[in-house]
């Protein structure tokens, strides 16, 4: 794939953003037969897709917006088929597993709070029951023999799983490359206009034209969406992750804050700080994560930490996805969410075909329009 600009090429869809959301959508579009170009930033870009925790996670999703639970389950259920398709195309195994996942609590207070969240979640009208149970220490121990005595209990959801998300990222890029999709890094989109029935995207390396445009630029959608009559109110948030050396397998289920990858490393994380500086790292936050990890799994005490990092979450103002199509600029769409790993199967297999057809299917995604922010504001 050439890296130089293709101002004269004809593209059906320009996908803005080469993170997981962008490449999953682009892959789906290519499967639908669209000629796709992906416009992305360079190597040092802020890219949540390089720094995430890799859960394909269901439990806890949907508190405050019941349809989000159903949307998440749809993706969780589609994930196996999605990973099989990717393997057929590339030979790469993204190591998707859905053994069920845990949320572990280190005090009665935490466990009570956890039970409360689940109760409120399930009491919402129209929620899909996804069978999350509260378990005692002994019940957890029967499934996770290495937990420490301080784990008082936790919750378990059989739909939870995980994947090797960096390999997923690479696999999608490799699949796109094999399909001949044009990927243009260092093509940061500065402006988008619609002229003579097509979109013109201005980049430092010239203008790219396409019939449709899908905004998948993460938090940058906030700036880009208004250019095509859409909106994407965001509130980025920083998460920090600790990762260990490779270990022999010891943990068969992902925990929301701790998981063993197929390569053997253990990832520990799930902090939330209001910051947009991805270069900042707070030692005390890593320390808290480490301290809780050792209390959850005391056998990890002597294990070496090889790296910590922080990454900026793509977060909409209410935390739920935004899928929209423009009224004023027909052919412009937003695809924007946190949990882009979990939802990758939906983006590839459900959202992309809608964009290819030129209209979102309201029966599936109407609740995720950014118009909800006005309804709430008015109410």
């Amino acid at each position, binding site marked *: 794939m050439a890296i130089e600009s293709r101002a004269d090429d004809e593209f059906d869809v320009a996908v803005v953003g080469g993170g997981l959301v962008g490449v999953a959508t682009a892959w789906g579009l290519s499967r639908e037969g669209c000629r796709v170009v992906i416009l992305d930033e360079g190597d040092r870009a802020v890219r949540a897709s390089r720094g995430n925790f890799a859960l394909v996670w269901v439990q806890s999703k949907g508190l405050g917006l019941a349809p989000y639970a159903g949307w998440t389950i749809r993706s969780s259920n589609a994930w196996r088929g999605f990973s099989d398709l990717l393997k057929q195309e590339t030979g790469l195994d993204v190591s998707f597993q859905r053994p069920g996942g845990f949320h572990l609590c280190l005090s009665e207070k935490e466990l009570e709070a956890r039970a409360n969240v689940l109760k409120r979640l399930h009491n919402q009208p129209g929620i899909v029951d996804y069978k999350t149970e509260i378990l005692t220490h002994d019940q957890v121990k029967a499934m996770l023999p*290495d937990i420490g005595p301080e784990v008082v209990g936790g919750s378990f959801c059989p739909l939870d799983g995980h994947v090797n998300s960096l390999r997923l990222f690479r696999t999608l890029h490799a699949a796109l490359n094999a399909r001949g999709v044009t990927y243009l890094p260092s093509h940061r989109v500065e402006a988008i206009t619609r002229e003579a029935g097509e979109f013109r995207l201005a980049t430092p390396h010239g203008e790219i034209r396409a019939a449709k445009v899908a905004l998948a630029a993460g938090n940058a959608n906030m700036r880009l969406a208004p250019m095509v009559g859409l909106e994407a109110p965001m509130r980025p948030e920083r998460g920090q992750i600790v990762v260990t*050396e*490779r*270990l*022999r397998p*010891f943990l068969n289920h992902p925990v929301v804050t701790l998981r063993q990858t197929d390569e*053997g490393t*253990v990832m520990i994380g799930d902090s939330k700080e209001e910051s947009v500086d991805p270069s900042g790292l707070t030692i005390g936050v890593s320390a808290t994560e480490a301290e809780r990890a050792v209390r959850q*799994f005391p*056998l*990890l005490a*002597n*294990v*070496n930490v090889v790296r910590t990092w922080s990454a900026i979450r793509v977060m909409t103002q209410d935390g739920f996805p935004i899928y929209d199509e423009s009224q004023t600029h027909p052919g412009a769409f937003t695809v924007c969410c946190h949990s882009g790993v979990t939802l990758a199967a939906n983006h590839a297999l459900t959202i992309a075909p809608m964009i290819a057809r030129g209209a979102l299917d309201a029966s599936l995604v109407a609740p995720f329009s950014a118009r909800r922010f006005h309804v709430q504001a008015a109410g």
Partner: protein
Amino acid sequence: MFKRLAEKGPAISITVDGKPVTARAGDTVASALLGAGIDHCRTTPVTGAPRAPYCLMGVCFDCLVTVDGVGSRQGCLIPVREGMKVETQLGRREAGR
């Protein structure tokens, strides 16, 4: 691969995979292995390939061994101690060790 210029300094007894090895004061774990003609100290966690100390200055991490039951220690930075138990490390480390 290496011989000692002079058998100077007090002898220190350690074991490597259970076998006795005589090191010298001033040795690191890695130099003790090299001095005893042991030419590899681990296999990699990725493909299981054999590896031996490469840089002896703490940058390559190919000298990782298990020392007194604790895995993944940098042999070239750790001075030997009387009675130290060194084990070669095979593949990925085991949690809890």
